[in-house]
């Protein structure tokens, strides 16, 4: 396992470097000079040269690459072209919105999708199962922003229970206000994420219910709930965990839409704004951080799966 962890970490670092390289190339393939983008129209050559020297874009491409990678290793993403503020602290403050949003939504989604998904499988041939399946299908079909808008309309506009949008400027120093601001976005993301999780959990449960080991356990005297808990949970969890990793990553990236709907100062809205303003350091910083998070989620999912399934561990031993 230690060996596997070491190798997996190496893969993680290499993937991160590869992502950095792709980003570096893409940003330099974009039409136009970042220096020109930074200055207003009509700047003279001397001004452009000065900015180029400041940005380092007058240096050979290999030197630029070296600086770029060295900066990445220190999580230094440079300064914003627009505000001239360092990008890294801005990303950190944006993460205090996006991460709680994603994680809370994920926890909530799992909290209702797991029992309902299992129930939908247990009652597959009855109307409750059919109804749950239909509801989750609906949850998949309806766009996120529509759910968000409906929630805003019902909970915020009609019932006036929660704020419709925004986030306190002082952030989490007022935890209650911050939590209230996040409540509706969390619910929105959780509903969408939960709908797809429910379907995966339902099908994993159906697989387990038809499995021989469950019937075997019952044939030797285990009650149905006992057999399901002893053999079903872990066998059902293994396929769901890899899906959870993908879901979590796509929620993190998909937070853009929800952040727009609720006007949240998260990572997604920062990316959208930075692209509109051609603020390359910010774009680059946000993309690197989200890449890192997605890679970390995949890493965690892989490790957990290995802990559950001895057959994966055996493969590893055979391969090394």
């Amino acid at each position: 396992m230690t060996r596997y962890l070491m190798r997996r970490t190496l893969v993680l670092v290499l993937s991160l470097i590869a992502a950095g390289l792709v980003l570096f190339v893409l940003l330099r393939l974009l039409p136009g000079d970042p220096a020109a983008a930074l200055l207003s129209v009509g700047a003279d050559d001397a001004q452009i040269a000065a900015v180029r020297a400041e940005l380092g874009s007058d240096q050979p491409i290999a030197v630029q690459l070296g600086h770029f990678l060295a900066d990445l290793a220190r999580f230094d993403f440079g300064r914003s072209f627009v505000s001239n503020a360092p990008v890294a602290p801005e990303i950190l403050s944006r993460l205090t919105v996006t991460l709680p949003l994603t994680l809370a939504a994920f926890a909530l989604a799992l909290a209702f999708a797991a029992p309902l998904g299992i129930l939908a499988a247990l009652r597959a041939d009855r109307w409750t199962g059919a109804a749950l399946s239909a509801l989750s299908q609906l949850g998949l079909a309806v766009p996120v922003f529509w759910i968000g808008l409906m929630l805003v309309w019902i909970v915020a506009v009609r019932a006036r229970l929660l704020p419709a949008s925004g986030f306190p400027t002082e952030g989490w120093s007022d935890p209650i206000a911050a939590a209230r601001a996040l409540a509706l976005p969390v619910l929105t993301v959780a509903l969408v994420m939960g709908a797809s999780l429910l379907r995966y959990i339902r099908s994993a449960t159906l697989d387990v219910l038809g499995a021989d080991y469950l019937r075997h356990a019952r044939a030797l005297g285990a009650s149905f709930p006992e057999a399901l808990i002893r053999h079903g949970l872990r066998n059902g969890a293994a396929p769901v965990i890899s899906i959870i990793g993908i879901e979590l990553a796509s929620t993190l990236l998909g937070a853009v839409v929800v952040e727009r709907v609720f006007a949240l100062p998260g990572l997604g809205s920062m990316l959208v704004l930075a692209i509109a303003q051609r603020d390359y350091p910010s774009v680059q910083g946000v993309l690197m951080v989200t890449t890192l998070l997605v890679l970390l989620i995949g890493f965690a999912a892989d490790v957990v799966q290995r802990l559950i399934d001895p057959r994966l561990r055996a493969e590893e031993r055979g391969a090394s």
Partner: protein
Amino acid sequence: MSLLSTLGLSIRAGTRCLVEDVHFSLAPGDRLGLVGESGSGKSLTALALLGLLPPGLVASGSVRLAGQQVIGRPDRQIAPVRGAVAAMVFQDPRAALDPLMTLGAQLAVPIRRRAKAEGRRLSRHDLRDRKIAALERVAIDAPERVLAAFPHQVSGGQRQRVAIAMALACRPQLLIADEPTTALDVSTQAEVLALLDRLVREEGLALLFISHDLPVVAGIAERVAVMAAGRVVETGPVAEIFSTPRAPYTQALIAAARRLDDALGLRR
């Protein structure tokens, strides 16, 4: 009193009838073979005896295990009868054992359940001794290694031996073996069959042995019930079925077995 008796047992999937009007009975110590080609309803019959039909299949008629009706009873009332009265060995031990649990942990479950039913608590030490004894009983050479192994780490024969040990650990009166050697390779088949035969005799168990292989059944059972297309077409002592088969299907089955023997040069 009979240990197991079925009367008019039928199994339906919707309107389709898969097993129809099956009846047989086993007294303690009886050994009955249930023979038929695949799809004839043998395995479904076995599952129905324990009330373990897959969802969508409905059994009707009567199945009595040690006097208790199985059909129509809620699952939690049948669960205590399973294992304690009748335990089952399945066809494919690879699928029947939980791939994520060590064999030792899986073997511990019926041992603990049995001890609990007898009102005793097992210490860790006792449990370990019992697990090892259970594996030695099914002629496993390195019990410690097998206890620590996961199902995919041992051979097919060893997996089936562990499954047999689990069934015996329930201390049942009746063992239901559903094609217990079909998934094994030929040399292992004979070993596992001989083991099963010996254990059933030594423990004085009743046996319901299900197979498509008439000669194999003849070797281990006293009586045979021949199933075809969901019905029992003939029942009788092994010798009688072989010497004077009455149902055309049984005659065809015996003729086929003879032809196979001839082709292999095994006929004496």
